[in-house]
């Protein structure tokens, strides 16, 4: 835990580099957790990523500093790690399904209603990349909520904005992403 303590101290001093270094730690922790769960839990048992993330957090900082600022960095890293993991996973699966090295899904190739959650995830992720360019703050909220599974309250605390505006951004972003995915905008 000495690594994490050092990183936490760096975060406390406001060094943004530290959050980058936190990412692999988050990743490792998520991985360990998921493996442990798999070992003792029956298949089909659903687990909210929120729970995974929370647990990872608690383990990581059990003897560290727990200010909200650090927590914010942590959640951002964790949500980004989740996104990465899930997108990679979905890509690999869809590549197997469609055979060959298809990188991006083509909306014309699938009916939205029939789309699997993996396909949807990839479509949302693509649209999200555009949102990141046009409205970075809103995109951060989507990452935290959609991939990180955070509640509005947690997002509000993480980003230091009001809960209501989190909700508004989330609702608008969802609509925007949906229209983008359906190719209507």
């Amino acid at each position, binding site marked *: 835990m000495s690594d994490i303590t050092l990183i936490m101290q760096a975060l406390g001093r406001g060094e943004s580099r530290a959050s*980058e270094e936190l990412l692999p730690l988050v990743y490792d922790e998520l991985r360990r957790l998921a493996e442990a769960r798999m070992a003792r839990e029956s298949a089909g048992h*659903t687990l909210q990523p929120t729970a995974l993330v929370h647990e990872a957090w608690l383990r990581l900082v059990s003897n560290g500093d727990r200010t909200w600022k650090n927590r914010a960095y942590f959640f951002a890293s964790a949500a980004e790690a989740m996104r990465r993991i899930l997108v990679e996973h979905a890509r690999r699966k869809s590549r197997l399904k469609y055979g060959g090295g298809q990188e991006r899904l083509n909306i014309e190739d699938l009916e*939205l209603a029939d789309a699997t959650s993996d396909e949807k995830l990839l479509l949302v992720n693509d649209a999200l990349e555009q949102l990141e360019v*046009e409205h*970075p703050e809103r995109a951060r909220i989507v990452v935290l909520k959609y991939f990180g599974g955070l509640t509005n309250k947690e997002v509000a605390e993480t980003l230091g904005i009001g809960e209501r505006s989190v909700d508004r951004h989330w609702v608008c972003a969802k609509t925007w992403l949906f229209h983008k995915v359906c190719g209507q905008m």
Partner: protein
Amino acid sequence: MRDAATERVEEVFYAALEVKASEERVAFLDHACTGDARLRSAVEAMLASQADVEKFFRQGSPALASAREISQAIAGTPGLRAGVDSRLSAEEEIGKHIGPYKLLQKIGEGGCGSVYMAEQEMPVRRRVALKVIKLGMDTKSVIARFEAERQALALMDHPNIARVLDAGATVTGRPFFVMELVHGVKITTYCDENCLDARQRLDLFIQVCHAIQHAHQKGVIHRDIKPSNILVTMHDGVPVPKVIDFGIAKAIEGKLTDQTLFTACDQFVGTPAYMSPEQAERSGLDADTRSDIYSLGVLLYELLTGKTPFDQQELLQSGLDEMRRTLREREPHRPSTKLDEFRVEELTQTAIHRHVEPRRLKLLLSGDLDWIVMKALEKDRNRRYQTAIGLGVDVQRYLNNDPVVARPPSRLYRFQKLVRRNKGVFVAVGAVSAALIAGLGASSWLFVQEREARREQARLREEAEHARSSETQLRQEAEARAKIAQAAVFLSRGKPEEADQLVEKIQIPVTEPSLEAAGVFRNLGEWNVAQGRWKPAADRLLKLIQANQVDKSDMTDVATRDLIRVGPALVAAGDTTHYRQFVQETTARFAGTRNPVAAEHVIKASVICPLDQARIQALEPLAGVMEQSIAGATSTSSEYTYMIAWRALALSLFEYRRGDFTNAVAWGQRSLGYSDQRPTCVAMSHLVLAMAFCQLHQPAAARSELAQGRELVEAKYPAGLKKIPDLGGEESGFWHDWVMARLLLREATAGIESAAGGHEP
């Protein structure tokens, strides 16, 4: 893009969501969207899709993923692990080794890497700087790109350049670079801490320009010039700037794997505030030496004002597309007007750092320094200084109180820029009026537009592909530019031989027309003519034609004037292949000119040798233009009679080549009938007449004309003369006209002799 209208739509939409009952919602919308149908339909569209949106996000949400799925996903993501495993501290501890290098001390930390002082033990013991790139990049290709550049890097040897010595991969697979160790501080910091005045700053800057020029001549583009890459060290009490990190931006450029999107490092390598518009573009492939000139301009801007033209933070926060747009379209403030934005204490501080009174600072910058900086910062790289040395020399001219090359843009230029910036609008306005006038339907116009757009896209794609594979060509072009610039300097010092040796090495066609290049090649072409070196002369003059095409749509005699230099030189050099090609291109390019002088130039340059039927047909319209102008010429005409005589001669030779010998005689005699002709025109008229009479079986007349022509030509250039020391002039006749006359003399003599041989054995 975000704008007020979008904001308003979302505001109303979000408020309407709160109103659950449908009648109330309608009433609310009636009220909120009064008189704004577009707002209403946008909001209604969003509201209508809400059920689907909720369903879509509920079903597809990873928040419902099972533990099994998540752990499978995690277990199957090895790339992530290798890529972002960046627990630097574990690996790069002081005292440890990376390859043959022992880490001694961490000396810097950048956005994308850490820099260490290290000791090399083999083959020599020395201290070096070692930079480890910490991103999850594709190490193999980074190193491959570095290796590709290595030879060029090794050629660089300049006191103001820190050499890059080595590159490799750490045990965990991160790329690292080894450089000459420079003990120094950032150039801007050094200048501010020592309160250097403008002159001292400019002196340092000029040294930087020399360093960059040296690199460019070795074919190396820096691509990431910024203050933190230029360190100032003290050498016997004298500050010496050193440019570091050569070749590194190139090696790690662009090819960031998507893993790096993960990190806090900028999305692309390079520093937006110092990045040229072309580097910021999506393809990012098109950087050349002039991208470095732009960055030098930003550096100069910052040395003078303390700020960059565009604020780094603002650029980063505005998002990628907006940032590209800013770099591509927004005109930065001139350095002197930039100061107006400063707060009082900021201005005072800036002035103190420059050892000048605050109110004098603005005065100091306005004028020449403004224009020098703005010329380096031109959006269009063809309008920038073409070489680093050009920029440095202009700064030196300022320091010497000589007039600088950079000048404020003319009104015409500014208008052109306006057109360029708003091309869509201008094209649309132009096209719409054209459509109205021609009575074309709007739909067909749109169809054409769309097809054009698609073609344009295809072309751009092709270009991008091409650019990818044309690094060598870029390098050659950069070399060519540098050689031309140096040749211009040699010529201005009266050293044509040195200049000619330089441009002789340019093996590629001149792809970037400029007046400077045209001047150099014209000068050297004629210098070679004077030496009697016809082959090199022909080569230089052909390049002159390439360099001349600054404005490809120009069909006036300004654009054709050099053609009559090239044609005779090519034929005199015996280079019929290139001459034929030259005639082909010339007739194709100027086929549409209505300018009689241009027509005369084109015809004269094209008919020095017999030519095929297709060429003759291509030239016929031009002959028509000349005939009309002669017919329209009256005593009140402002044109000089000698110019009409030239046109008659060109027509005479054209008719001769066409096989209409009677007309050839008529035009030839008419040419001789004008007063005030140039001797060259008279000589050529006699010679064409000689050839035409010969064809008409009038040997006596032919011989008489030939004798008159010969006498004139040989009086100027005696038979057997190789060198042409006297290049002539307007009154006495230009060398190229005399050379052409000589060629005609040769042809006429041969023709008449063989005819005589045939008739009187």
